[in-house]
């Protein structure tokens, strides 16, 4: 930016008068780098130089250093916030009434030449303790209420660091809280995982984690999964309870359990009757379709029964359902699935390709999905069954939309879930890139926990519960 000659001088930045445009572009760069809103940054600069930032030469490096300092433990940030709002009222440095609110944004540690600062920082320590205690959750109603209003409160231009995003460069963004649900009925674990040896070839690993939006809003995880097998058949199911439904986690649980149990009963002793062991006959496929439809019906009936028993609306138990069955044939594999609502089933084969089964049904705007108990949905069950007969399957994946949405459009991108290296737009908490499950999770010793960690990837705008079931050829990894 600066000319080379002037770089040698220490104070060149301070001395250089910048045009409004120059400063604006510097601010834009800084705002991008630290992912903080431009107006908040402007407000910080304004409080730093005590007048509209562009009317004075500013030392951008000094500002950046201060921004980096902001990336400190929450206790210090909270102190800084309190101290800043006090400073603002006490010193009357606020330039214009319209700016007032913005100037309350935390700038840490505030301009050094003010005596009362350290005192107020100490004073605020008591409040700091309760504040950081909220992070660990604990059913502390007062604190939770505080979290709810915080985002909308009038003067809360609060910009805290998101601890989960890693250290360098320290991002300064509003913080996602991790809160325990106040409603203690029907508890479910915030994270679950399972890893099972299906047989000498196949293993199954499953994981489900609460999304950061549910954690932030002190709500339960709404997803569920289940799997089982009988003879050569393996059955995998995932369900996503609707976020707007009060006890959809119960609906999701029932949907998975009913579907898997029904299919297990129906598939026991069922063998394709076709003469060619590698090519199931039309009647075979019809029967399998009937089984899958029956599984969805049983799941639906289970939810309706539960709603009746609880004297609540079936809408309180809104849940999607995705069930898949797999059977190895002679040299091929048969996979069949039924899908009600969104989510995805992907089949990864030895040639490196991924086949997507079924089509998720969201409307023109994606919030319009269907559920097991959406009226008259049962008439659509049959057409929601899909089949795939494939060679050399290495990995099958069933997932809720919390995962599949991050691979949209799934037809092109779901393959990344298996072998992406790295997966576009996904980052680990540490900031490291995320690799496909076959290159990461399935290579770990403790696959169940590795999957849970994998499911905690960061992606902008992605905050739903995430559930993923994998069945894979362990001997061919």
């Amino acid at each position, binding site marked *: 930016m600066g000319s080379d000659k002037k770089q040698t001088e220490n104070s060149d930045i301070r001395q250089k008068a910048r045009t409004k445009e120059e400063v604006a572009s510097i601010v834009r760069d800084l705002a991008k780098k630290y992912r903080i809103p431009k*107006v908040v940054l402007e407000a910080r600069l304004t409080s730093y130089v005590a007048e509209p930032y562009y009317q004075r030469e500013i030392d951008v490096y000094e500002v950046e250093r201060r921004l980096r300092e902001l990336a400190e433990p929450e206790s210090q940030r909270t102190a800084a916030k309190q101290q800043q709002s006090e400073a603002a009222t006490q010193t009357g440095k606020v330039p214009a009434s319209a700016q007032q609110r913005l100037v309350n944004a935390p700038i840490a540690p505030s301009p050094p030449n003010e005596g009362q600062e350290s005192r107020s920082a100490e004073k605020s320590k008591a409040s700091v303790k309760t504040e950081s205690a909220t992070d660990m959750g604990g059913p502390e109603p007062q604190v939770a209420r505080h979290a709810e209003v915080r985002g909308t409160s009038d003067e809360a231009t609060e910009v805290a660091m998101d601890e989960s995003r890693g250290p360098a460069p320290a991002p300064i963004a509003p913080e996602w809280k991790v809160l325990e649900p106040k409603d203690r009925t029907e508890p479910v674990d915030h994270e679950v995982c399972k890893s099972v040896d299906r047989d000498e070839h196949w293993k199954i690993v499953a994981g489900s984690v609460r999304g950061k939006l549910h954690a932030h809003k002190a709500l339960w995880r709404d997803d569920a999964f289940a799997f089982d097998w009988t003879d050569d058949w393996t059955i995998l199911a995932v369900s996503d309870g609707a976020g707007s439904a009060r006890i959809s986690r119960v609906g999701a649980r029932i949907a998975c359990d009913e579907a898997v149990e029904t299919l297990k009963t129906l598939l026991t002793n069922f063998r394709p009757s076709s003469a060619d062991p590698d090519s199931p006959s039309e009647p075979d496929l019809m029967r399998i379709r009937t089984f899958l439809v029956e599984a969805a019906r049983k799941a639906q009936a289970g939810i309706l029964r539960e709603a009746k028993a609880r004297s609540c609306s079936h809408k309180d138990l809104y849940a999607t359902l995705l069930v898949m069955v797999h059977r190895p044939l002679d040299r091929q594999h048969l996979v069949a699935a039924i899908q009600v609502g969104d989510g995805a089933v992907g089949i990864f084969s030895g040639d490196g390709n991924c086949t997507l089964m079924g089509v998720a049904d969201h409307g023109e*705007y994606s*919030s319009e999905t269907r559920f097991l108990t959406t009226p008259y949905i049962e008439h659509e069950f049959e057409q929601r069954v899909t089949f795939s007969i494939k060679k050399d399957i290495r990995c099958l994946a069933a997932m809720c939309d919390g995962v599949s949405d991050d691979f949209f459009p799934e037809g092109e991108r779901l393959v990344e879930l298996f072998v992406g290296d790295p997966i576009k737009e996904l980052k680990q908490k540490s900031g490291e890139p995320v690799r496909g499950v076959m290159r990461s999770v399935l290579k770990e010793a403790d696959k169940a926990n590795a999957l849970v960690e994998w499911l905690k990837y960061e992606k902008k705008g992605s905050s739903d519960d995430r559930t993923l079931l994998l069945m894979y050829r362990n001997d061919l990894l």
Partner: protein
Amino acid sequence: MENAISTSLRRLPVYVLIDCSGSMSGEPIAALEMGFRSLMADLTSDPQSLDTVWLSVITFASTAEQLVPLTDIVDFDPPHLEAGGTTALGEAIELLTERLLAEVRPTTPEQKGDWKPMVYVLTDGSPTDDWEGPVDDFRSRELASVIACGAGPEVDEGVLKRLGQTVIRLHDTQPGTLGAFMKWVTMSVNTVSRSVGTRATLNEMLPDLPEERGIRLVP
């Protein structure tokens, strides 16, 4: 390059249409300007809104103008508003329709669409242009959830009902009332951004109105 939006990122587009006719000049318009500043500050302090909300401002007086195109809330500049002229609501809705079609991404096989856009329309008078055609055309396309808000006694409630699924009345255009209104807009964007994907309906998502400040829902 700044406009390169991830194909799998769902945004919550929010359009705010502001009546800047002559009757809004002075304190009301200043209150709204300030309202945008605090809206911006509040939305960017909520992690979910920060990640998902994109904002556009359209003003209408004798003509309509998109003051701020649909912009990531992080990059949003609170606009300077000027009042003067008549109330070209029809033109504003025509412009809104055009911008929604151009800026909001529907779900297609290749692309995950945005969340259903939110539209807030604030007016303090009756339209002075030909509004029925544009409004009916807009409604029939079902492009967005519309909250039509009328401030003061001059408002024609019939127009609002034809325009929006949800209709809100503000008792007057005093700065206090408009400030409370903008705060409610902020709260509702925040709650909607947290409810996207939960498949709740708009009215289930909207927070309670500050009735003590003279703002109420028209049934």
